[in-house]
Every structure is written in structure tokens, then in C-alpha cells.
């Protein structure tokens, strides 16, 4: 007890020396919930971002998303299939335990366990070998140039703590939250003080963090605010310091307000339109006996009928970047080579006539109305633009729970024309070539190819991309694949939406393009 008081006194003294005494509480709000504090349960940006303040991976990404050392000080490729990671020494978990190679091996097993939602972090068949207490080898079945690309969000668990707290198994998506998921034990700069899922989470700085803190906070409070208007109001009235996302139409209002501003930046998610080009007859159309979307001219007509400039300036109010590709230009070095097919309703009409539909046809469009920025408004605009080339598109806007059920695999892609958004989790084009443009098979390829677009040539290129280690050659293969999709308008890319964070002028915060909210970089006045 006495010792405790003395440490406390020492800590207080230290705090008084290093930081100003006044409390600096950073309050932020997001539209979604933070549920389990087990980062292996839900592979989702916001959850991983919030926990990234508390737990750490072998690698980290810096303010520009460049990969930097995290819990591993450095690494090398010993052989093409053997990577060696040298772990940081002297790192302690929040509960005081030392961080060692055992924790990495344990975390790899945990990440690959059946209940894990982040299995994709470590390629199947990879062996994790402890060399000594601070060295770990990763042995892969084939050369893998992007082995560690997603490791900044593969957070390391403490083996001992997990065993003591019944956390060796991943919290499953279907079972009750175990007590351990209401707390978290990481190595990161913040400690979870209290957690009320779906309502409020309180963080306190970790005084024993191995790095040098770049924040000046004494407390962080996270709250869920679902309603857009309420979130905006809470920021305007100064009840919170930061919130995400800002509805694009409210940006001007928040900027005009004396104490608040909007941080805008490019986001990695690409929004695009899928046309069912797989079925022999469209499910929802007045064209019977054939599928107009099988004809590339029809798809291109749709492409050229959509005035992306208008959508950019009106629906998105300038907060989007029109895209010719299904991946953000930040993630593909040769993106600049691609230009959108120009907006040209007359050419579109001509293409339709050539394809045998001079008077257009009717089709239903499915669209989520609570998933992406102004998703429903984009769909409305698209439907109106298509009307001008004679396409009678009927819009079915629905909540995301219904939308993903209908247009996705659950109901066997029960949709003829729809809107989807995608961020490649690995920040790499192969993810897109596999999930979005890949022919659907029963092994999971093309699982998010909601239009069933399929070109074997693209798939072949994708296979080559996977094993090519030379960056220039690899990029060339990717470009070839994207070129095919682009030329035959297999999927219509629309834009990358922008990140819009509403912030109080009292705080300085780093906005990273992956939309993780990392408050270990926050400075508050």
C-alpha cells in the first residue's frame, strides 16, 4: 500500500514536470458503434482504428500510410520464403508483462483460428517460428511481396494475459462478449479505462509506453452518435471535439462556425456500379430472353450516360475524386494512365441503338441508403441521367442490412444493377482483382463481384500478379488487367469519396487516408 502511494506520488510528480496539470479531454464521436475490444472479431476500419490506440502490430503505418517499424524494430527477407522480424526490446503490456516472441507466435495462431475475422492478415500455410525471445521467422509457401502489408492492424496479444483471462480464443461473432472483450491489454499509447459497448468508451494515456507520446491528452472519450444532424449539432455546440463523418452538405456550415473546421482528404474507398452481365436473362428488366448487359456497348452506354462532373459538384459538393479505376490512385502507381470514358449522352444513345435498344429498356437499380456518402442521392442522379438516354431505371433504395442481403451472395446476387463501395484491405490492387472483378467461383473469388462480371483473361493476369515480386512487372500486369475491365466497361467506377472529419479548432489531429481515428497524434489547446 505504502509502495503504491509512493509510486503514485512519483507518477504525479513526473506528470507535473512533463505535462501541464490541467486536464485535456478529447471527446469524439462516430456514427457507428465500438463493440468488442477484441480486434480479431471485426475487420472494420473504425474498430481497428480505435483499438490501434491501445494495441500495436509488428509494423505500423505513419501519417502518410508508409509502413514503419512497430513492435518489430526491423525485418529482413532472409530467403524469398522466409522473413525475419527483430522485435523491439523492453516493451511492456498494459498489465506490466514483457512483450516477447511467444506473444507473436500466439497472436498468429489466434489470428488464424476459425473464429477470427482477420485470417487474411496471414496467408494460409505460413509458419511462424520463434528463433529467440526477440526474433521471429515467417516461412511462407510461396514468395509473397506483400506479406506484411496489413500487419499494422494485426495487433499483438499478450499470451500470458490471454491465458489468464480466457482470451486465447477469439470472441466469436455469435457468442456473448466475454469479460475480456470489455477490457483490452495492449502495448499501445492508451489504456482502456471503461467500455460500454454501443454507448461510451474512456481511454487514459499509458505512462509506460515505449514510444515518445505525440499527444498532450489526459483522457479520451468516445461516444456513438448515429444521427447525422445530431452529430453535426454536437460539434457545433462544442460538446465534442471531433466527429466522423461530416455529411457533405454540412461542411460549409461547420466551416462557417467560428470554433469548428472540417478536415478533408482523399479516402481509399472507391464507389462503382455493377451490371449483371452473368445471367442469360436479367431478373429485373423488361428485356426478356436475353441480357443486354452482356453487350459491352450497352455497358459503355451506361458509363457514358453518367455525368460524373455533375455528381462531383452537386451531390458530393466537390468532396469526391472521380475515378477511372476501381482502386484509389493513392494505391496504384500507374493510375494516372487511365482516363474515364467521357460523358457523352449522344454517344451513349448511339451505342444503345447499335446494340439493338434504340428506345432503351427498363431495369431496376438496387442501392443502399445508409452505407456510403450520399449513396441514395448518387443513385437518384444516376437514374435521372440514364432516363435521358432512354433507360427507364427504377430505383430501389434500402437500408444496408437488406441491401447486402439482396445484392450479395446471401440471396445469390439477386440484383440486375447496383452500387457498391470497396476499400482493398491490403491497400493493393490484387485484392480488387480477386474480390471485385474476379469471376465468381465457389472458393470465394469474385465474392463481392455483385454484377458477376467475368473475363478469364483478367483472372489469368490476377494469378500472375499474386506471385510476381518485381514491382514494375507486377504493376504492368495490374495495369493490363485494369485496362481490359476499363475498355469493356465491365464495372463502372464512379469516384473515391472524400474523408470529412469535423473538428474543433482547439485540436490538431492527423487525418490518414485509411480513415482510422488515431488520437495518439492529437494535440489539444
Amino acid at each position, binding site marked *: 500500500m505504502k509502495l503504491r502511494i509512493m509510486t503514485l506520488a512519483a507518477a504525479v510528480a513526473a506528470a507535473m514536470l512533463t505535462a501541464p496539470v490541467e486536464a485535456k479531454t478529447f471527446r469524439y464521436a462516430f456514427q457507428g458503434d465500438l463493440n468488442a475490444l477484441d480486434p480479431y472479431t471485426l475487420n472494420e476500419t473504425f474498430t481497428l482504428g480505435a483499438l490501434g490506440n491501445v494495441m500495436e502490430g509488428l509494423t505500423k503505418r505513419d501519417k502518410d500510410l508508409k509502413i514503419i517499424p512497430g513492435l518489430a524494430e526491423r525485418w529482413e527477407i532472409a530467403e524469398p520464403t522466409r522473413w525475419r522480424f527483430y522485435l523491439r526490446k523492453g516493451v511492456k503490456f498494459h498489465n506490466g508483462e514483457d512483450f516477447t516472441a511467444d506473444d507473436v507466435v500466439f497472436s498468429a495462431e489466434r489470428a488464424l483460428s476459425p473464429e477470427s475475422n482477420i485470417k487474411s492478415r496471414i496467408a494460409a500455410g505460413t509458419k511462424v517460428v520463434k528463433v529467440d525471445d526477440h526474433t521471429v521467422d515467417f516461412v511462407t509457401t510461396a514468395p509473397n511481396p506483400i506479406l506484411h502489408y496489413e500487419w499494422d492492424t494485426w495487433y499483438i496479444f499478450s499470451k500470458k494475459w490471454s491465458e489468464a483471462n480466457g482470451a486465447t480464443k477469439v470472441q*466469436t461473432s455469435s457468442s456473448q462478449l466475454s469479460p475480456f472483450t470489455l477490457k483490452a491489454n495492449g502495448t499501445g499509447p492508451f489504456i482502456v479505462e471503461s467500455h460500454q*459497448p454501443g454507448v461510451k468508451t474512456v481511454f487514459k494515456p499509458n505512462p509506460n509506453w515505449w514510444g515518445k507520446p505525440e499527444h498532450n491528452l489526459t483522457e479520451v472519450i468516445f461516444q456513438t452518435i448515429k444521427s447525422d444532424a445530431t452529430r453535426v449539432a454536437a460539434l457545433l455546440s462544442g460538446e465534442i471535439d471531433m466527429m466522423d463523418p461530416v455529411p457533405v452538405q454540412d461542411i460549409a456550415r461547420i466551416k462557417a462556425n467560428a470554433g469548428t473546421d472540417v478536415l478533408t482528404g482523399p479516402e481509399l474507398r472507391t464507389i462503382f456500379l455493377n451490371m449483371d452481365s452473368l445471367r442469360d436473362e436479367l431478373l429485373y428488366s423488361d428485356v426478356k430472353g436475353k441480357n443486354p448487359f452482356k453487350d459491352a456497348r450497352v455497358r459503355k452506354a451506361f458509363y457514358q450516360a453518367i455525368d460524373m462532373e455533375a455528381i462531383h459538384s452537386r451531390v458530393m459538393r466537390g468532396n469526391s475524386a472521380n475515378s477511372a479505376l476501381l482502386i484509389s490512385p493513392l494505391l496504384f502507381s500507374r493510375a494516372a494512365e487511365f482516363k474515364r470514358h467521357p460523358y457523352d449522352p449522344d454517344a451513349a444513345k448511339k451505342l444503345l441503338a447499335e446494340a439493338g435498344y434504340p428506345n432503351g429498356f427498363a431495369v431496376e437499380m438496387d442501392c443502399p441508403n445508409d452505407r456510403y456518402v450520399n449513396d441514395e442521392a448518387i443513385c437518384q442522379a444516376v437514374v435521372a441521367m440514364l432516363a435521358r438516354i432512354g433507360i427507364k431505371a427504377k430505383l430501389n433504395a434500402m437500408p444496408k442490412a437488406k441491401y447486402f442481403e439482396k445484392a450479395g451472395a*446471401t440471396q445469390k446476387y439477386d440484383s440486375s444493377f447496383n452500387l457498391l463501395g470497396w476499400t482493398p*484491405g491490403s491497400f493493393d490492387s490484387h485484392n480488387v482483382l480477386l474480390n471485385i472483378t474476379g469471376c465468381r467461383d465457389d472458393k470465394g473469388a469474385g465474392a463481392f463481384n455483385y454484377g458477376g462480371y467475368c473475363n478469364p483473361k483478367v483472372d489469368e493476369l490476377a494469378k500472375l500478379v499474386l506471385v510476381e515480386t518485381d514491382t514494375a512487372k507486377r504493376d504492368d500486369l495490374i495495369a493490363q488487367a485494369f485496362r481490359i475491365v476499363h475498355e469493356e466497361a465491365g464495372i463502372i467506377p464512379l469516384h473515391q469519396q472524400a474523408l470529412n472529419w469535423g473538428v474543433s479548432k482547439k485540436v490538431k489531429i492527423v487525418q490518414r487516408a485509411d480513415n482510422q481515428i488515431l488520437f495518439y497524434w492529437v494535440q489539444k489547446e
Partner: protein
Amino acid sequence: MLAFTIRRLLEAAVVMLTVALLAFVLFRFVGDPINQMVGQDTSIAEREELRQRLGLNDPVLVQFGRFIWNAARYDFGISYQVKRPVTSLIAERFPATFELALTAALFAVLLGIPMGVYTGIHRDSWLSKLFLSVSLVGISLPTFLIGILLIYVFAVQLGVLPSFGRGEVVRIGGWTTGLLTASGLKALILPAITLGLFQMTLVTRLVRSQMLEVLRTDYIKFARARGLSDRAVNFGHALKNTLIPVITIIGLQLGAIIAFAIITETVFQWPGMGLMFIQAVQNADIPVMSAYLLLVAFLFVLINLIVDLLYVWIDPRVRIYGREA
């Protein structure tokens, strides 16, 4: 009396069972919970496995049977989204909704009754007309619009009241209350007005029409003839007689208020059961939805049952004819 009670209890049980069935049918139409539970990269096979684990692939009847069996033991399973037992979620969220509903009801009564009395007595005064017109606005604007407008004026423009949440809460045993802190009380004002406005209108109008009726009865005319003062007649005799139906209605309304807190709680991010429900609907969180529906149904059935039994107790004739609306 006993036979009647047993019959009504049985009927109440049937009602609850039907509600359970309806609640259950609803599940099948709100969408797919799986997509909201996993990250975007999760493979189809993993999703299918999860579906299997949740028992969503079982025959409908099996699922229904399991649901009823568990519900009868007050076990509604685990929320797909929040991943905690629904019963503890409800226990956690109930105080917020209850305090909001109670405050809204108080607001409705404390303003509604005086306004109703005044408009009943001074039928044709301009103030009465003003009261009635203002109270009509309460039922002429959708709740969500009233909430947004209040936020806009009092939180954003004037900055005097918070726009969301419950403020600081104090925990007393299993109950959390916002009534003991200044920020908690402030946070309560806007949502309570939003929720109570509609009820206030109802109370005002109900009291007024009851007053109008009572004031015409011979008994009041007689009281006046006896030379009692207006004040004594109005408040001593008339108001007393109008209060019984008013109290009954307000009792019945408390259930309705709790149910209609859904919209108010959504607008104000009030961490109560209504917000929990609407989020559950958006995420197809079946266990939470069904539990909420059953709970609301239970409240209504309970209140109805009590009212019915009270009526019988007061007026034995009802035993023969049944309760009239």
C-alpha cells in the same frame, strides 16, 4: 370474478404468444444480420459457417420453438451486434427510457391539465383558442421535426442545452439516473418536451372535453344553484370528476410513450431502449428486436389487464358485457 380473471390471464397469454409469433415473422424480413457482423473481406464460406452457428439455417418452426422456450425463461439470447445478453442490455437501457418517459408524462400532465381546465371553463376566450391552436401544433408536426427544430434552436443557435445523450449519470445499484446531476437534468429537457408534446395535446383536449361534459351535468348546475363560487364548482366538483378518466388514459399512455420514444431517442441519441431497437432494425439484430417487441407487448398487455380487472372490480356489470372502449 375468479373465472373472469383466469379467462383474461389466459387471453393475455395467447396475446403474448401471438405477438411472439409476429415478432418472429418480422425477423425474416429485415435483412441479413451476417453482413453487419463481419468485415468486408470475410469469405462466403466463413459467413455461411456463422449463419449455421447462429442457427439461422434451421427450419423456421425449430427456430420459433427455441425462441419461445428461451423467452419463457427470460432469455432472449445474445445481441448479434453488441454481443451481450439482450436481457442485460435491456436492464442497462431501461432506466434511460423510463426516466425520459416519466419526465415526458409529467410535462404532459403538468401543462396539459391546467390548459385543459382553462379551455374547458372559458370555452370561447381568445386564450383558450390560442391554447388549443398551440396544442394542435403538437400533433400536427412529426415528432422528428420537432426534435430537430429544438436542437437547432436551443443547442446550435442558443447553445444553452445539449443536443444529444444523457449527460453525466449516477449509478445507484443497477439503475443509472440522470436526474441527480445538472448536466443530466439539462440533457433531459429537449427530449422530454419532444416526446411529451403529443401527450400534452392529448391531455389538454381530453381534460377540456371532460370538463365540458361535466360542467353540463345537473349535479354541477345544482352546485351552482346552491350558490357555490365558480372556483369551488370548477375545481372542487368538476375537475375532480374529470380526473378519473384522465388518469386511466395517462396510465395507458405510459406504455405508448415508451414505445414512441423510438423516434425521440433516435433524434437525440438518447441511450434508451428505443434507440437500441432502431439500431437493431438497421443491423437486423434479431435477438434485440424480438426482445424489445415482446417487452413492449408485455407492458401493454399488463396495463390492459390491470385496467380490465380494475373495471370489473369497480363495476360488476362489465363482467357480463365486457369492457367498452
